[in-house]
């Protein structure tokens, strides 16, 4: 197996995440045969309706990682303004490098090779706590979050319980 840059880098990140896992995050390749496909678990941040929940997601890395960012998709129903109904996560750190043509985001917020899986997962955790209202991926969730916060929080809490099989 030719050890490409992507493989070396991902193995290194996997190692760092195993030796020193951040609080509430478990991540690693589904199988080491394919390092470009990871699965991770993210704990719902405390003090939010996601608290107590555990959310599975898959990360798919491009062949030219870390030049290009991976895509992240929740493998569960996550009712959140920045998560598409398909589970795809819409967050600036996952957007290709360079300046946003729409000037929503600074280049520094977007993907660059100095970011990492750990940083992505931590960003996603804080995104769960604080949705970004500027570019909703799930309009229904965004609307509910903005206008009927109680209902939004209840929907999220129900989702957490369902996910844990309770």
């Amino acid at each position, binding site marked *: 197996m030719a050890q490409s840059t992507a493989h070396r880098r991902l193995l290194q990140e996997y*190692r760092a995440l*195993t*030796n020193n*896992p951040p609080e509430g995050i*478990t991540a*690693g390749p589904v*199988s*080491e045969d394919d390092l470009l496909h990871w699965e991770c*678990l993210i*704990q719902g941040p405390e003090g939010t309706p996601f608290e*107590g*929940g*555990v959310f*599975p997601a898959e990360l798919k890395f491009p062949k030219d990682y870390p030049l290009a960012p991976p895509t992240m998709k929740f*493998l*569960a*129903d996550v009712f959140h303004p920045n998560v*598409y*109904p*398909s*589970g795809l996560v819409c967050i600036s750190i996952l957007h290709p490098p*360079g300046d946003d*043509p*729409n*000037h929503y985001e600074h280049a520094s917020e977007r993907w660059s090779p100095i970011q990492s899986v750990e940083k992505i997962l931590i960003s996603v955790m804080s995104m769960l706590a604080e949705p970004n*209202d*500027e*570019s*909703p991926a799930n*309009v*229904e969730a965004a609307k509910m979050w903005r206008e009927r916060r109680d209902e939004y929080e209840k929907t999220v809490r129900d989702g*957490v*319980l*369902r*996910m*844990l*099989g*309770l």
Partner: protein
Amino acid sequence: MSDEQISLPFFAIVLLVSGLIVRYLFFSGPRPERPPIRTAEQLIRSREVAVQRIQQMFPQVERRSILWDLQRNGGNIQSTTERILAGRLETPPITFQPPPLRTQSPPSGSSGPAAKQPEKPAQPDLITRYNLKSKVTEAPAAEDGGAQGEHDKKGKGWSSNREERQAALQRRRDEMILAARRKMEAKLAAEKAAQGSS
């Protein structure tokens, strides 16, 4: 006499045919105008093709902006292209939400919840997903007691063995889910008790 007998049904047929022709001419008129309105699905598809064509020329432009511009000019690729070249492409308002890429089941009723419903059962809960049914009922004995030391050694840290690494990762995953479930169960029980006593 025989002449008349032949010409009457013939005349009737001529009437019928001409009637059909008139009907066809009158009622087929509005038809060509209809399709764009009638099939929103087709419209979405043709927009998607247009977006792809534009994105081939300008990969840096976001799909959402292109769709917004196309929507405003009625799907005219050329004028959108010109606007991008001139740098006059507008930022779509946040309320503008294009349909997600590759819609397998376009919402015919166009109501959000109805379209979302069929997706939900597709996602199993975590217990089913990671095959933890047997472990759920198991007492969390492994967590406390003598197993702890061994656990620390095995569960944490980087192993040079590939299989061990894989197993350790899976164990961490399972533990995280089971711990969350136990905690939530305890919380629910506490809530129930509080409700019962009050």
